[in-house]
C-alpha cells in the first residue's frame, strides 16, 4: 500500500522554465510534508517542507503547495537550472507517540535541459 505516490517517474524541462513536481498521499494523518533532492551516490538532501496548517511555503526558487482536501502537494521550481537535475522525493511525516518516521514516494527524476 503506497501511501505517498509520485506518479511521474521523470520530467524534462528547459532551463529557465518552471518545473512542477507532483505528489499525492492517502493517509489523512500526515501532518508534515518534505521534499528531498537526491544526486547519484549521495544521500537525500532536504529542500523544503510544509506543515499541514499552511497551504504554501516559499524558499527562493522553490515553492511547495499543499491541497489538503485533495491530498496533493506540488513543488515548483522557477526558474529551473541545469544543477536542479536530480531525483526529487516527496515525504510525509506520521507522528505516532514519540516517533516521527518519514514515508517516501518513489521519486521523480527531473532533467533540466539547456
Amino acid at each position, binding site marked *: 500500500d503506497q501511501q505517498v505516490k509520485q506518479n511521474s517517474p521523470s520530467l524534462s524541462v528547459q532551463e529557465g522554465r518552471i518545473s512542477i513536481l507532483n505528489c499525492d498521499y492517502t493517509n489523512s494523518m500526515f501532518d508534515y510534508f518534505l521534499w528531498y533532492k537526491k544526486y547519484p551516490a549521495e*544521500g537525500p538532501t532536504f529542500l523544503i517542507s510544509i506543515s499541514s496548517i499552511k497551504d504554501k511555503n516559499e524558499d527562493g526558487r522553490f515553492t511547495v503547495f499543499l491541497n489538503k482536501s485533495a491530498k496533493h502537494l506540488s513543488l515548483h521550481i522557477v526558474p529551473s537550472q541545469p544543477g536542479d537535475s536530480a531525483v526529487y522525493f516527496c515525504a510525509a511525516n506520521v507522528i505516532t507517540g514519540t*516517533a*516521527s518516521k518519514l514515508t517516501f514516494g518513489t521519486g521523480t527524476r527531473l532533467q533540466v535541459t539547456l
Partner: protein
Amino acid sequence: GAGVSQSPRYKVAKRGQDVALRCDPISGHVSLFWYQQALGQGPEFLTYFQNEAQLDKSGLPSDRFFAERPEGSVSTLKIQRTQQEDSAVYLCASRFRGDTQYFGPGTRLTVL
C-alpha cells in the same frame, strides 16, 4: 564533520555473511533513523532511536536485522546471515528537533 557520515560507503558480502553498517549522526542530534532504499524506490523506514532508546523498530524486515545506539550517538545496523534481497542502500538520518531529518550518503550493500 558537519553532516551525517556513514561507513563503509560500499560493502560486498557473500550470502550468509554478517555485516555491520555504521552511522555517525550530526553532533547533538538526539533522534536517529535508519532507512532501506531498494533500486528505483524511495527510502523505507527501518528503525528509530531517541538517544540510546530504540523507540520504533517496526520497519525491520526480519529478526536478522538488529540496530543499536548504546551511547546515544553512533549507531550500528547489523544484518546477520545476509541474503540477496538485503541488497540495497542503507541510509541513516538524524534530527535535532522539529520534523526535518538530515541524511547521510548511505551504504550500498551488495549480497552475492
